[in-house]
């Protein structure tokens, strides 16, 4: 009965490969997010979707493409992976658009590019 689930939990891949991370929430929330956490623990928002509509795209390289097939799912596809993409990627959801509704985070996907 995990609220926000991400797969895979770990991902090790070579430079230049393409990979996807999947996220699903069973909370009935309208808004979903992707955050990147670097080695210094800094949390940076990448994308936000509200009812399948993209509302935030924070100057993320074109190699990153989110897709929301329905409001319970938000996947992240990354093309031509680079060493600098190594990080922990967190999916999150909130009942409505806005920080004051409280974010529920998944457990993260640790991406290592070698």
């Amino acid at each position: 009965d995990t609220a926000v689930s991400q797969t895979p939990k770990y991902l090790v891949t070579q430079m230049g490969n393409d990979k996807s991370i999947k996220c699903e929430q069973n909370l009935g929330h309208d808004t979903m997010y992707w955050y990147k956490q670097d080695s210094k623990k800094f949390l940076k928002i990448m994308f936000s979707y509200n009812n399948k509509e993209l509302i935030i795209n924070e100057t993320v390289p074109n190699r990153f493409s989110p897709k929301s097939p329905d409001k319970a799912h938000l996947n992240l596809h990354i093309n031509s992976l680079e060493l600098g993409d190594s990080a922990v990627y967190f999916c999150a959801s909130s009942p409505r658009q806005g920080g004051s509704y409280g974010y529920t985070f998944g457990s993260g996907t640790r991406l290592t590019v070698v």
Partner: protein
Amino acid sequence: QQQVKQSPQSLIVQKGGISIINCAYENTAFDYFPWYQQFPGKGPALLIAIRPDVSEKKEGRFTISFNKSAKQFSLHIMDSQPGDSATYFCAASIGPDKLIFGTGTRLQVFP
């Protein structure tokens, strides 16, 4: 103006002591100030939050103190326990806009 500055970067506290983490902001339009707690290998989780019309909010051993004029807010953990060892993030948001997170504080509580 959209930044939230957090200090210290790391904090070591003896069991039973008080842990204090501070945050400062510039944008006076921020209207919601939460704290998130993150354990290793887990995502951040909402711990406690405050709005600027209140100067203090307490939930168990966790208290947020809010100073609107100074544009600062802080998290106080009373009677700190080893189980409180985690990374703590302050954050701020405006209405329907996204959360802006601070840089995080790694708290270690030793027995």
